[in-house]
């Protein structure tokens, strides 16, 4: 049932939720000495996973021709594996490169709050795309 779109949207939602949690953590630690703001990246990993899936779909078999039957079996399996990988993209955490203040911390409240706004909008956008997907599904069930 879950298709590539659902998987991609799922990864995007969980990545954005992780990012939102990171912003909350950064704001909570705005005055913690030595605290370096965290940043969450998942977009590149997600687009990479989707690219690998796309490639697996269009791939032509380069091996000996007699095993083309085997490839026909392997092809869709591999594709399913790549599709599942699109739904399991892990968000990576890095640190903000901003300079630190005298207490060793570098959280800027405005960066975090604007980041939250942006993430909220992105979350709503992805959620809406998912809602469209489910609406389609509901229509096909109920007619």
């Amino acid at each position: 049932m879950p298709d590539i779109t659902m998987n991609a949207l799922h990864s995007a939602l969980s990545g954005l939720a992780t990012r939102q949690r990171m912003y909350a953590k950064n704001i909570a630690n705005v005055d913690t000495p030595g605290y370096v703001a965290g940043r969450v990246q998942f977009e590149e990993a997600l687009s990479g996973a989707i690219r690998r899936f796309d490639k697996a779909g269009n791939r032509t078999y380069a091996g000996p021709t007699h095993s083309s039957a085997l490839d026909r079996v392997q092809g869709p399996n591999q594709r399913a594996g790549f599709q599942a990988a699109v739904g399991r993209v892990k968000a990576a955490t890095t640190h903000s490169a901003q300079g630190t203040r005298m207490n060793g911390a570098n959280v800027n409240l405005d960066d975090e709050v604007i980041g939250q706004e942006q993430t909220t909008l992105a979350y709503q956008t992805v959620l809406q795309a998912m809602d469209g997907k489910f609406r389609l599904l509901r229509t096909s069930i109920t007619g």
Partner: protein
Amino acid sequence: MFGALQTAHSGVRVARIWMDATSDNIANVNTVRSTADPAFQARYVVAQAIEGRTNGVGSGARVAAIRYGSAEGRLASWPDHPLADANGLVRMPDVDMSTEMTNLIMSQRSYQANLQVVRTAREAYQSALQLGRK
């Protein structure tokens, strides 16, 4: 995605650094040094447009460089100051308080204006999102 938000964010960042620099200048307006050392140098933020986005529209501003004020400062007579030289002179920073106060107001307004853009852009994008709802 959300270009106006990112643009406004860059403006907020520049205004914040400008406020930081101005407050540092004001904080050091009475920083006394000995005549053998350079005076405290005021920091001035050089903003630069970020070019190169589609539709011929730029994508905000960034701090290109920090310029320093006079290292010469001005010499003041302060004979009983511990840092005074043989002639009773000390080096004071050449920070013009009225310029700094004006900069402080301008940087504050710039910060607020950019945050207003963030608010407006958020509302605009949100109404675009509403379109898709039933």
